[in-house]
C-alpha cells in the first residue's frame, strides 16, 4: 500500500515538474520518465500534450504559423544556441509566429525532442545544429507536410531547407588574428612561444571545418606556428572546457579560440584566471571577460533562423535548397575589437585590425581560398 502511495506521489511530483517547465517545453523530463516506467511516462505525456494544446490555442492568433526549434544543448550558452534563439525571438516579434524551443543535452533527448515536434504538427521544425542530421535523414520523409530546416549542415530532402556557414573563412581571420597576437610580447601575459590554442565542444565535422580555417589562417601569418587542439566532448561542461584551456595555457599557448557553446564560458573564464586571452565564437562574446577576449568570430545563426521563418511566413520556403553564408555576405565575421581596445588602450596592436580587414578583402575577392573540411563548402 505504502509503495503504491509512493508511486502515485512520484507521478504527481513528475507532473508538477512538467507544469513548472511548460514554458520551456521540457521534453527531457518525460523522456527520463520513459526510462523509469512506461506507465508513468504515458501519464506524463498526456499531461504534457494537454499543456501544449492549450498553449497553442491561445497564441495561434498571430499569423497562425507554428515553429519549433530543437537545440542540441541548452539555451543560455551565450553562443550558438542563444544566437539561434535571438533570430527566432525576432521572428516571433515581427511575424507573430508561435515559437517553441526544445532543449536537450543527450542524443536520446535530441531524437525524442525532434520526433515530438514532427508529431505535434508544427508548420516548420528548425534543427539548430548538425547533431540532428541523422534523425532528419531517417524521419523527415515520413512527415511530408512538415517543413524542415537545418542550420550548419546540409541534409537532402524535398521538405528540407539547409543553411550552412563558411565558418572556415571566419576562423581563418580568427586564426590570423591569434597568430599575430601571440607575437605581441609587450602585452601582459603573452609569452615568446608561437603557440596558439583551440578548444572545441564535440568532435563533429562542422568543428573540423572551423579548425581547418583557424589553422590555415594562423599558418598564413606564421608558417612555423604550433596550434594546439582539444575537444571537450560535450556542449555543456564549462569546467571541462576550463581545464582544457588551462592545460593549453600551461603548454605555452597565450590565446585560445573556443568553439564550444555552453562549454565555452569556462574557456573564457580560464583566460581570465590565467591572465591569458581567448577568442569568442558565434555571438559577440568580447564583453564576457572584458580585456581577455581578443575578438569573437560571429556566425549569424540568428539571421539564418530568422530568414527561414520569414520564408515560411511569406510562402517562399523551398525544400531541397541549400544556402551558404560567407564572409562576403556577412554570414561570418570578426568583431571590431572594441572591448579589447578599451582594455589595452594605447597598447592595442592596430596592425591586427588592419591586417584582418585586408585578409577579409582578399577572401572576398578570391585571392585567398580557405580550405574546407571534407563535406563542407559552397557546392556541398
Amino acid at each position: 500500500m505504502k509503495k503504491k502511495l509512493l508511486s502515485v506521489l512520484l507521478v504527481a511530483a513528475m507532473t508538477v515538474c512538467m507544469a513548472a517547465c511548460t514554458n520551456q517545453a521540457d521534453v527531457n523530463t518525460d523522456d527520463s520518465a520513459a526510462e523509469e516506467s512506461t506507465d508513468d511516462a504515458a501519464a506524463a505525456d498526456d499531461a504534457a500534450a494537454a499543456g501544449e494544446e492549450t498553449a497553442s490555442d491561445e497564441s495561434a492568433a498571430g499569423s497562425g504559423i507554428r515553429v519549433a526549434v530543437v537545440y542540441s544543448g541548452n539555451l543560455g550558452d551565450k553562443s550558438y544556441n542563444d544566437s539561434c534563439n535571438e533570430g527566432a525571438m525576432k521572428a516571433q516579434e515581427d511575424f507573430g509566429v508561435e515559437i517553441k524551443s526544445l532543449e536537450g543535452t543527450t542524443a536520446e533527448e535530441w531524437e525524442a525532442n525532434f520526433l515530438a515536434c514532427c508529431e505535434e504538427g508544427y508548420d516548420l521544425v528548425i534543427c539548430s545544429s548538425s547533431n540532428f542530421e541523422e534523425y532528419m535523414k531517417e524521419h523527415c520523409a515520413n512527415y511530408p507536410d512538415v517543413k524542415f530546416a537545418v542550420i550548419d549542415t546540409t541534409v537532402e530532402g524535398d521538405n528540407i531547407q539547409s543553411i550552412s556557414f563558411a565558418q572556415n573563412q571566419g576562423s581563418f581571420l580568427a586564426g590570423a588574428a591569434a597568430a599575430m597576437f601571440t607575437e605581441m610580447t609587450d602585452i601582459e601575459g603573452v609569452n615568446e612561444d608561437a603557440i596558439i590554442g583551440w578548444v572545441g565542444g564535440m568532435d563533429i565535422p562542422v568543428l573540423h571545418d572551423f579548425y581547418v580555417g583557424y589553422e590555415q589562417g594562423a599558418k598564413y601569418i606564421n608558417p612555423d606556428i604550433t596550434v594546439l587542439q582539444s575537444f571537450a566532448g560535450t556542449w555543456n561542461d564549462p569546467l571541462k572546457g576550463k581545464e582544457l584551456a588551462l592545460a593549453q595555457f600551461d603548454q605555452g599557448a597565450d590565446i585560445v579560440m573556443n568553439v564550444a557553446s555552453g562549454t565555452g564560458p569556462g574557456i573564457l573564464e580560464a583566460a581570465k584566471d590565467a591572465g591569458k586571452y581567448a577568442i569568442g565564437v558565434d555571438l559577440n562574446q568580447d564583453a564576457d571577460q572584458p580585456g581577455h577576449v581578443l575578438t569573437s568570430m560571429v556566425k549569424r545563426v540568428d539571421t539564418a533562423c530568422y530568414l527561414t521563418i520569414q520564408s515560411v511566413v511569406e510562402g517562399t520556403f523551398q525544400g531541397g535548397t541549400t544556402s551558404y553564408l560567407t564572409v562576403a555576405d556577412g554570414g561570418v565575421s570578426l568583431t571590431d575589437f572594441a572591448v579589447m581596445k578599451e582594455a589595452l588602450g594605447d597598447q592595442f596592436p592596430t596592425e591586427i585590425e588592419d591586417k584582418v580587414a585586408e585578409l577579409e578583402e582578399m577572401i572576398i575577392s578570391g585571392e585567398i581560398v580557405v580550405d574546407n573540411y571534407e563535406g563542407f563548402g559552397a557546392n556541398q
Partner: protein
Amino acid sequence: MQFSNIINASLIYATFRASTPIIYAALCAAITQQANILNIGTEGIMLVGAFTAVTVSYLTGNWLLAILVSMIAGMAIALIMAVGHIKYKAEICAIGMGINMFALAITKYLLNSILGKSGSFSDPAIVGIPKVHIPFLDNVPVIGEIFNNWAITEWFVIILVIVITFLFYKTVWGLRLRAVGRFELAAQTAGINVNAMKYQAILISGLIGGLAGAHLSLGYSNLFTEGMTNNRGFMGVAAMYFGNAHPVFTAVGCLIFGFADSVGARVQAYGVPSQFVLMMPYIITVLVLAISMASKKAAEKKRKSSLTV
C-alpha cells in the same frame, strides 16, 4: 609531442584542481556508506549546492555566507532522502536517482524564476571563493608554481579528509557509525540508536555535498550551468567504492581520476584523437572498480580461511 609539456610541475596542481570536487563528492558518499547507505544522490545534492552558492553569492556578495547556505541546502535535500529511506523504508537507490532528477529540474526552474536566466549564469557580481596567495612562494620556482593561488576550499579538502578519517576511526561516534554499517542488529542490541545514527550520517553527508557544489561553482569556477556537476558526483561514488569508504584511500581514488583527466587534457592538444582521450575517465573508472573489487574479494577470502583454521 614534447614529454616535458605533458608531465611538468603544473600537472600536479592541475590534477589536484580537477580532483577536488570529486574528493568532496566522494567524502559525501563515504559518510553514508559507513552506515551502509549508498548515497547515489550525491550528484543531485552537489548540483543544488552549486546553484545555491552562486545565487547567494550573487545576491549578497558574501562567499562565506554562500557556502554556509549551500551546505544547509545540501542538508535539506539530504533530509528528503533520509526521511524517505529511514522512515518510509524506500529503496535508497531509487530515492537517490529521484533526487538527482529533482535537482536537475529544480535548479533549472529556479535559475529561470529567481535569476531570470536559462542555461547558464555568470555575472561579475558573483563573488568567488578567494585564492590563497602566499607572497614568499612567488620567488620559489617549482613549489611556488604548484602551491600558490589555491582556492581556500582546495586547502580545506585536505583538512576535511583528515578530520573525517579521525571521526571514523578515532571517535566513539565513528565506531558507532561503523557498527551500524556492519551489523545493524548488533548495534541496536548494544544500545545504539540506529536510526539516529543513520539520520546523522545522511545529514552530514548533505552538508559536505552542499560544500562540494559550492566549491564547483565558486571555487573551481565562477558560474553556474545547468547540470554542471556532469557526473562528478557519480565519479565520487566510484572513488568511494575504490577506497572502501576510507577517506584517505577514497581521496587517492579521486586523484587517479583527476590525474587521468589532466593528462588527457594535455595529450589531446598534441593530436592524440579526442575520442580516445575522452574515453579514458570511463576506462579508469571500470579499472579502478575492478581492482578494488578484486582486492576486496581476496581480503574476504583470506579472512574466511583464517576463520576455519
